[in-house]
């Protein structure tokens, strides 16, 4: 669990797919917000499923953006 999800609020259109796939991590109101953690693999799956590509994943150990 080294990936940290960050929402790009300028890209998020509140489609809601992230909350549907990982309600323990994302809550969607006007935009999505991050409310929890999940395994890296699951976060990558959710980030790739976001129709707006608004979920940015950062590796907290290296500090590098790993997605997109």
């Amino acid at each position: 669990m080294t990936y940290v999800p960050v929402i790009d609020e300028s890209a998020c259109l509140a489609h809601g797919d992230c909350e549907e796939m990982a309600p323990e991590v994302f809550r969607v109101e006007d935009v999505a917000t991050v409310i929890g953690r999940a395994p890296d693999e699951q976060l990558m799956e959710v980030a790739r499923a976001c129709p707006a590509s608004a979920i940015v994943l950062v590796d907290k150990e290296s500090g590098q953006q790993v997605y997109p």
Partner: protein
Amino acid sequence: MSAVVDADVLIAGGGLAAQRCCEALRRGGFDGRIVVLCDEPRAPYDRPALSKAVLMGERDVSTLAYREPRWYEEHEIELLLGAAARELDATAHVVELEDGSRLRYGQLLTATGSRPRPLPLFGESERVHELRTAADAQALRDTLANGSGELAVIGAGLIGLEVASAARALGLAVTVIEAAPTPLARALPPALGLWIAGLHREHGVDVRLATAVESVEHGSRDIRIKLSDGSYVTAETVLLAVGTVPATEWLKSSGLGPGAIGVDAGGRTQLPDVYAAGDAACYPGPHPEQRIPTQHWEAAARQGATVARSLLGQEPLPSPPSMFWSDQHGRRIQLVGHSPDGCHVELDGDPAASDFIAWLTHTELPPAAMLVNRPDALPQARARIAASLPS
């Protein structure tokens, strides 16, 4: 506001544009009375799942509402379920409903969306489906759920192709019949349409292109469709998916329509205090040569919020390149921008592996891009297209 009104803001239509307009109005501090006419007997809900997860049995239609009922109470938004507008008297600022009641409004948002284009050739039959509403999706799901038999899909647009994909995954034999030479012919250049046809054929879909339906015979157990090439397709279930028409007939006497309602960048129609958003509206495109009704989820979401800004006295936000997405046979397909007619196609990646970006370029018009299983490239595609738009 001088006269007493039933709604300071009346929204005809209960889809995504209506929902986003309500949210943005309340967020912007609007405290007037908001009334929403939802012609279906349910609160605004998310439609993209209807042709995907609902058909696959992964989501139930009861889970699709954008907000809990409590949200509408807390935000003092009155939803009139099962209430459809029948006529607009813009001079009197009155909308008449199907049940004959009349509502006086201060400002009106027409967001009545679109409906499937009818194909009268197929007549009325329980075997003949269309897909627009939650009820349509539930009926189609019930029919496809046992995973056997044959489905004929008339029209290779987004809905037809997504249903074909879901039905194959469920185990049905599927034939797609399209009159144009390539799928998604209005949205994609022929080379990419043919790539999509190939994807479906690889997954066992029988794709008939440049083929029209000549006649239809209803048997006791199935429907027999005669095609323009002289061949027949027999299917227990038929989906009609030959595009949509804007649901704007109710505006006839007001002078708006027929067809999509032209508006300015703030969503204003030519009538005072009347706005439009979503599938029923046609907004100026990001490029002056491209004013195209987009009829996609993102457009409806942005336009609903745009009208709220206008109602709050704010300027519209700059509009980014349009985008739509589709899921077919496990591939995420995204189109950013408007594919220009006669464009040049540059491929980056491997089409055979369903992993590529196709750049659609043109000497005079802004480029577009189709992404297949490359959601990571969306920000880059958006930035490149936005940079080419006139500011």
